[in-house]
C-alpha cells in the first residue's frame, strides 16, 4: 500500500478519500485553493498545500501545481476524485512521468473513453449493444442529416469530448438539425476546446442505468451491480438508487455482464462506471463509461458492503482483486440524494452563503458524505454539491421511507442559502418514483407540471 496519497480534489469527495486513506493507514496530503483554506479536508488531512487562487483553472485543474505539491510532500500516489483532473489523460501521463501513481486506469484507456465516438467504436468491437447513431464523428450538418434520416427522429447531438451533461442537444425534426448542429459544435469548442460532435438516436422515456465495475491490473474484473440514475435535471443527477428497480433480474445480469466484458476488452483498471440507456422493453444500449469514482458510488457500497475507495487504492497499489464475482453479494436497496446549494424555486440557481446551521441526519443505515459544517461558507466558485444523503434498507420501500425521514431531519440554514431538499422530497413523494417506474423525464415533469405539449418546441429534457 502507498505511504502517502495526495488528494487532487475538494469538497465531499476529498473528505471521502481522506477517510479511506486514514482507515488504511495511508497518510494524506490535501491541496486547496485560497477559497478552501478552511475546508474539511484541509483540517482532516495530515498535510495541506495551497496550490492556487479560487479559479479551478489555476488550482484544482493546475496539473503542475499539484504534481509539485506531491513532490514537495513526498506523496507516492494521487487520487483525483471525480471531475477536475480525474479523466484527464494528460494529467495521468504527467503523474507517471513524475513517478507518481495516478489512481485510475491507464492514460490510453482514459483517453479512449474520453472520446465518446471512439468509446462507441471500442464497445461495439467488444460486442456491447450500442444506441443507433453515427459510426464516427460528423463532419457537417449535412452528414448529420443523413444519419438522422436513417435512424429516425428524435436524435441527440453530442460533443465527442463532452461530459457532465454538457455539450448536447436534442433534435426533434429535420428543420431544427442544422441549427442544433452548429450550436453544439460551438458550445463544444467553447467548453472542451474540441468541436467534434456525433449523433445518436434519442430515447424519450429511457432509463439511465449504470454498472459499477472493479478491475485489477491482472485482467480480473467484477461488477458490483447496477444503479438507476434516471432522476436527472438537464443531465445532472439528483437521486440515484440501486439496484435499478423494476427491471427483471435477467436484464440486470445482462447489463452487468456487458459492462464487465467492455471493461476487460480495453484493459480497464480500477473502479469504473459503464452507463446504459434502457428502453421500455428492457432493451439496453451502452452510452459511455466513466473512468473514475462516481458521485453516487456510496449506493453501491451500501449494497455490497465494500468500500470502493479502499478497492481503488488496493488496485492502484498493485493488489489483485480481492473478490470473485460469486463473492459479491448484493443486499437490500440503497438511495442517494444530492443536496445541492441551489434554489429549486428559482430554476436551481446556485444559492451560496454561510451555513449558520448545519445538522446532518443520523441514525440507522443513514450515511452523509459532506464537507459542510456549521459556519462553513458555501462559495460561488465550485459546483453546488453540499452533501450526499445515502440510506439503506432491506427493501426499496423502507429505503424510501428512511430517506424521507433523513431529509426531513437535515437542518441547513444560513442567509441566502437554499438547498434542493424540498425538491428531493417532491421526487420521493412522486407516485411513479415510489413505484420504481420512472424515466429521465421524471424531474422535468416535476419541475414543469404537464401542459398541452407542442412537439415542435425544443423538448425540455435536453
Amino acid at each position, binding site marked *: 500500500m502507498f505511504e502517502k496519497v495526495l488528494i487532487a480534489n475538494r469538497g465531499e469527495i476529498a473528505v471521502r478519500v481522506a477517510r479511506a486513506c486514514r482507515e488504511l493507514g495511508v497518510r494524506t496530503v490535501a491541496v486547496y485553493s485560497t477559497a478552501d483554506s478552511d475546508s474539511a479536508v484541509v483540517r482532516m488531512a495530515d498535510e495541506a498545500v495551497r496550490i492556487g487562487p479560487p479559479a479551478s483553472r489555476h488550482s484544482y485543474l493546475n496539473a503542475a501545481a499539484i504534481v509539485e505539491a506531491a513532490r514537495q510532500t513526498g506523496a507516492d500516489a494521487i487520487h483525483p476524485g471525480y471531475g477536475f483532473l480525474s479523466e484527464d489523460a494528460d494529467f495521468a501521463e504527467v503523474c507517471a512521468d513524475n513517478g507518481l501513481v495516478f489512481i485510475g486506469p491507464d492514460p490510453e484507456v482514459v483517453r479512449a473513453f474520453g472520446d465518446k465516438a471512439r468509446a462507441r467504436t471500442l464497445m461495439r468491437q467488444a460486442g456491447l449493444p450500442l444506441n443507433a447513431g453515427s459510426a464516427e464523428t460528423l463532419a457537417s450538418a449535412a452528414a448529420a442529416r443523413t444519419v438522422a434520416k436513417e435512424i429516425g427522429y428524435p436524435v441527440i447531438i453530442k460533443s465527442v469530448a463532452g461530459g457532465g451533461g454538457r455539450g448536447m442537444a436534442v433534435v426533434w425534426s429535420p428543420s431544427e438539425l442544422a441549427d442544433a448542429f452548429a450550436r453544439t459544435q460551438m458550445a463544444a469548442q467553447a467548453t472542451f476546446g474540441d468541436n467534434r460532435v456525433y449523433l445518436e438516436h434519442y430515447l424519450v422515456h429511457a432509463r439511465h442505468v449504470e454498472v459499477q465495475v472493479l478491475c485489477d491490473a491482472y485482467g480480473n474484473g467484477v461488477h458490483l451491480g447496477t444503479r438507476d440514475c434516471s432522476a436527472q435535471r438537464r443531465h445532472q443527477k439528483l437521486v440515484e438508487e440501486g439496484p435499478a428497480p423494476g427491471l427483471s433480474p435477467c436484464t440486470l445480469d445482462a447489463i452487468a455482464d456487458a459492462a464487465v466484458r467492455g471493461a476487460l476488452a480495453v484493459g480497464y483498471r480500477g473502479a469504473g462506471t459503464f452507463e446504459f440507456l434502457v428502453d421500455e422493453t428492457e432493451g439496453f444500449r451502452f452510452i459511455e463509461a466513466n473512468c473514475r469514482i462516481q458521485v453516487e458510488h456510496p449506493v453501491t457500497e451500501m449494497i455490497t458492503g465494500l468500500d470502493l475507495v479502499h478497492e481503488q487504492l488496493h488496485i492502484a497499489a498493485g493488489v489483485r482483486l480481492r473478490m470473485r464475482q460469486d463473492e459479491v453479494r448484493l443486499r437490500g436497496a440503497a438511495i442517494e440524494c444530492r443536496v445541492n446549494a441551489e*434554489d429549486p424555486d428559482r430554476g436551481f440557481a446556485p*444559492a451560496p452563503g454561510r451555513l*449558520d*446551521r448545519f445538522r446532518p441526519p443520523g441514525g440507522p443505515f443513514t450515511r452523509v458524505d459532506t464537507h459542510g459544517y456549521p459556519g462553513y461558507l458555501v462559495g460561488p466558485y465550485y459546483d453546488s454539491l453540499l452533501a450526499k444523503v445515502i440510506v439503506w434498507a432491506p427493501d426499496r420501500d423502507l429505503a424510501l421511507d428512511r430517506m424521507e425521514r433523513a*431529509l*426531513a431531519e*437535515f*437542518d*441547513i*440554514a444560513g*442567509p441566502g*442559502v*437554499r*438547498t434542493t*431538499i*424540498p425538491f428531493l*422530497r417532491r421526487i420521493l413523494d412522486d407516485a411513479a418514483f415510489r413505484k420504481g417506474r420512472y424515466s429521465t423525464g421524471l424531474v422535468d415533469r416535476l419541475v414543469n407540471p404537464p401542459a398541452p405539449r407542442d412537439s415542435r418546441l425544443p423538448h425540455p429534457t435536453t
Partner: protein
Amino acid sequence: MSTPEHEDGVLAALRQQARLLVGEVAGPLRRIQISRGDAAVEIEWHGDHNGGPARPAAVPPAAPVTATAPADVPQAMAGPGSGSAVSHSIVSPMVGTFYRAPEPGATPFVAVGDLVEPDRVIGIVEAMKLMNEITAGQAGRVLDVLVDDGQPVEFGQALIALAPA
C-alpha cells in the same frame, strides 16, 4: 436550507417563547415581533401596563423585552420570591387538564380583577383522574386567566397572571 418542518419548528419555538413571556410578564401588549433568520422574538408592552393607572414617573417606561430562541423555558414557579416586581404567573405544577370552576357551569374560582390570598384556590388541574386544587401561592390581583376552561396544560405552564399585592 431548512425543510418546511424545521422552519415551522423555529417559528413555533419563537411563538412559544413569546407566549411564555407574555404569560409571565403580563401587562398590556404593544407589539410582538417574531423573526426566523437568527431567531428572535421581540415583545413590547405599553408604558402604562398593569392595566391600572399610569405608573409613577420614577419608574422608567417598560423597555422591550427580547429573548432569543431557543432559550430555556423560563421556570416561573409559583411561590414567594419568584415573582417579578411587575407581575407573576401562577403555573401548573403538573401535566393535566385545567378547570376554572369546581364543576361545569359553576362560577369560576377567580375572575380578572379579583384580589386573592396565598391559599385561595384559583383552579383545578386534573391528572390521572385526580382533581388537584391549585392555590395562588401569594397574594395579589388577578390580571388575566391564561388558559381556557378544559384545556390541557403542561408542567410549568402559566395559568394566571397575578400582580403581587
